[in-house]
């Protein structure tokens, strides 16, 4: 714990920790888009006059949310794999303790997924505003339930002393003082991601000159800045509920540099959105600045999240198992196929990227 993540751990453990965090980052990016997108469709976007900036953004969201949810699920498989190698008992135990409640996320996810597709259809639009809002609300509730369940499951996995009592009680719910602020950090942290990606998407679809000075700039700036502010407040709240020794460790060498990176990311993004606001422009340069800030915040925040777990759990009994896992064959084949399939994925995107952008509605 006296070296920055993941350098203080034995080689195999550090290797899997790194793989876990890197793959989790990809999942989080898509998950943020879905969670924040579903939220914005309920609480703001898409209820204005026809042709308004809000409606245009809502249309982009409706078009892309199912695809991004598919990517979020796909991207979530890899960290789930490395998570099991790294933590095993704690992850499995919390899954089992929450059992029925935990497994409920699967049908809920299916319902949410189909409701996203439903939102793309002309059939739903023809049903009127109330029905549209109802569908959006149920989809949002589905993703909120999943976010809450993941947070709850994660926190229970850290509470080793509470496992036996939880099992004896037969409770389907688990509460920890960390739950509300932790959920809030993840929830509000998703908003700046959405603002940034929507910025890139709008620029791609409409072209830069069509955006500048538009209401879209105002909406995205508001979304980005509000998300950053609420994330910072939630982060402060989270810090206050953490046990003193945990907070101290997170400020130490293990997580301290990443906490600094996360804060720097928030500041860069806030500065970026302020410039967007002042210039009333979503120029490529500003979007890249925001992207850099977002990456810093994402990497820093995700590593700090992992360090909270590392502070709570003693990994030393598992280090031997990590070393054994690292000895099994297949890594070279994995690297070869990663390269090949990443190339093919890139080529697939290039194939369709040649097409002129459209508002597209394939359903």
């Amino acid at each position: 714990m006296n070296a920055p993540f993941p350098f203080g751990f034995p080689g195999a453990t550090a290797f899997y920790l790194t793989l876990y965090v890197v793959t989790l980052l990809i999942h989080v990016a898509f998950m943020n888009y879905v969670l924040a997108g579903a939220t914005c469709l309920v609480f703001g976007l898409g209820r204005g006059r026809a042709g308004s900036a809000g409606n245009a953004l809502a249309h982009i969201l409706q078009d892309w949310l199912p695809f991004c949810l598919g990517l979020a699920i796909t991207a979530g498989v890899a960290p789930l794999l490395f998570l099991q190698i790294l933590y095993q008992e704690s992850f499995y135990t919390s899954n089992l303790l929450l059992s029925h409640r935990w497994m409920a996320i699967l049908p809920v996810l299916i319902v949410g997924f189909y409701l996203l597709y439903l939102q793309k259809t002309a059939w739903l639009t023809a049903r009127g505003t109330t029905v549209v809002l109802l569908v959006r609300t149920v989809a949002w509730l589905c993703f909120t339930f999943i976010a809450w369940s993941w947070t709850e499951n994660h926190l229970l996995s850290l509470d080793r002393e509470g496992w036996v009592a939880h099992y004896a009680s037969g409770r389907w719910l688990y509460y920890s003082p960390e739950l509300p602020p932790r959920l809030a950090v993840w929830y509000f942290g998703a908003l700046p991601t959405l603002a940034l990606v929507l910025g890139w998407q709008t620029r791609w679809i409409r072209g830069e000159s069509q955006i500048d000075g538009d209401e879209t700039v105002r909406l995205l700036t508001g979304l980005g800045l509000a998300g950053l502010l609420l994330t910072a407040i939630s982060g402060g709240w989270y810090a206050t509920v953490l046990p003193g020794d945990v907070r101290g460790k997170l400020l130490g060498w293990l997580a301290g540099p990443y906490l600094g990176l996360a804060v720097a990311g928030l500041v860069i993004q806030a500065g970026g959105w302020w410039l967007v606001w002042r210039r009333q422009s979503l120029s490529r340069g500003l979007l890249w600045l925001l992207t850099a800030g977002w990456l810093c915040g994402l990497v820093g925040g995700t590593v700090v999240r992992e360090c909270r777990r590392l502070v709570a759990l003693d990994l030393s009994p598992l280090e031997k198992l990590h070393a054994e896992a690292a000895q099994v064959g297949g890594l070279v084949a994995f690297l070869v196929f990663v390269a090949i399939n990443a190339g093919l994925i890139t080529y697939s995107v290039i194939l369709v990227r040649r097409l002129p952008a459209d508002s597209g509605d394939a359903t």
Partner: protein
Amino acid sequence: MNPLIFYPVPDLGPVMKGLAIGGLAIFHVFLAQFAIGSGMLLCDLQRRSAGGRNPLARRFSDGYFKVLVLVSFVLGAVTGVAMWFTSIQVSPRTIGTMVSEFHWMWAIEWTFFSLEVVSGYMFYRYGPRLDDRARMTLLVFYSIASWFSLFWINGILSWQLTPGGWLTGHNVWTGFFNASFWPSLLFRTITCTATAALAACVLVNVFPSVSREERTEIIQIAARFLAPMVLMPFLGAWYIAVMPADSRGWVLGGSIAMLLFLTLAVGCSTFIGGYAVLALLRQKLYINGATATLLLALAFLATAGGEFVREGARKPFTIREYLYSNSIAPDEVAHLREVGCTSLDPYPVPGAETFPNLQLITGAKVYRIQCSVCHTLDGANPLSELAQMWSLDQKRLNFAQLQRTKPFMPPFAGTPAEVEALVQFLTWHQAHRPAEWPESSDPEVLQQIADWLREAGPGREPPGGPDLTVAVKGASR
């Protein structure tokens, strides 16, 4: 292997845990078959439609792909994740071992899964606006990726039944390319093409604005994907031939349930194959929506039967010769007979305050650890019914010599006192859980159980086979 850890065992009520994961697996496998076969079928349709030669094939493939996305990309993907979560609910030690040993295979499968999702969505979203070459490229990527997903997962699943040389050297490639790898992979590939062909026959009947002649044309194209089914009997025989001998014996009659499910799979497949050959390929008959749906339902039943047999043939293991269904390793049984299986379990028995004595609580723990993965008390495969007519001594003998009671049961992994606790718990439960129940602590009874345990040994196949005189002695007590 991952060390023996006591996990909190969830109670699924009347649903047997094996039933939960089995049911989900059948559903997921069927969706996966549909997705994989569809990739191949769509490539063929695209080939036929290239250059505007067959506008119908292009129109149908675009519509088909929308259904594929809505069904497979949602339900298929989520049930895939559900398989992992349900596996944890059933046996965390099994899934943990599989992940530890094969995580790179799974990670490779993930890269193909990612390609499948991205190329599939690109086709879904932009396919109608792409030229023929780009369409074909995306479909080939999708098709290759989905088939390779099967390739990698098949290696891990077939390893569970025939780990073979992996058991001695733990070489991951030896385990992956195990004895049942190729017959299983080829058989599954054919089921994929057949499922997609039948799905196409259903869909073409429900698509709007398709004339009777156009339907006939699509059905004839799709029906060609049923032709490989003629190889199924040979591949099935190959698969059964490479099974461990005792598993083969159960499938071929030793277990009536497995034989029935095998018959179901073979019967449904034969019916579908026969219909395809006689009606579609030879006489070029039309197939309407109702018939196509019935055939697809039969394909689902064939998949269900086949998956049941595949899962059941592994008994009493989840990983053949390596880990029993109850998550206890063969080499841990002897130790657990010394120290007991309940002494280290930290999790209490829910509602223990209503139990009349401590022995029954111990019995409930034994049931939870050793029996509950394949049995319930009163629901599916219920212990109370299975042992309904057994006397106390029969229970003692049958539990102590579990591997002799049924050849697909693991040996009992606990002390004589724990056998007796399980007997008392089950008997108390059968008696509708009265408020008073005396503890059983007769030293002679415990000694007899100890003798029976020693007789059967901690392994599955005691030298010389079962000693029938023991049962006679027990029955005469």
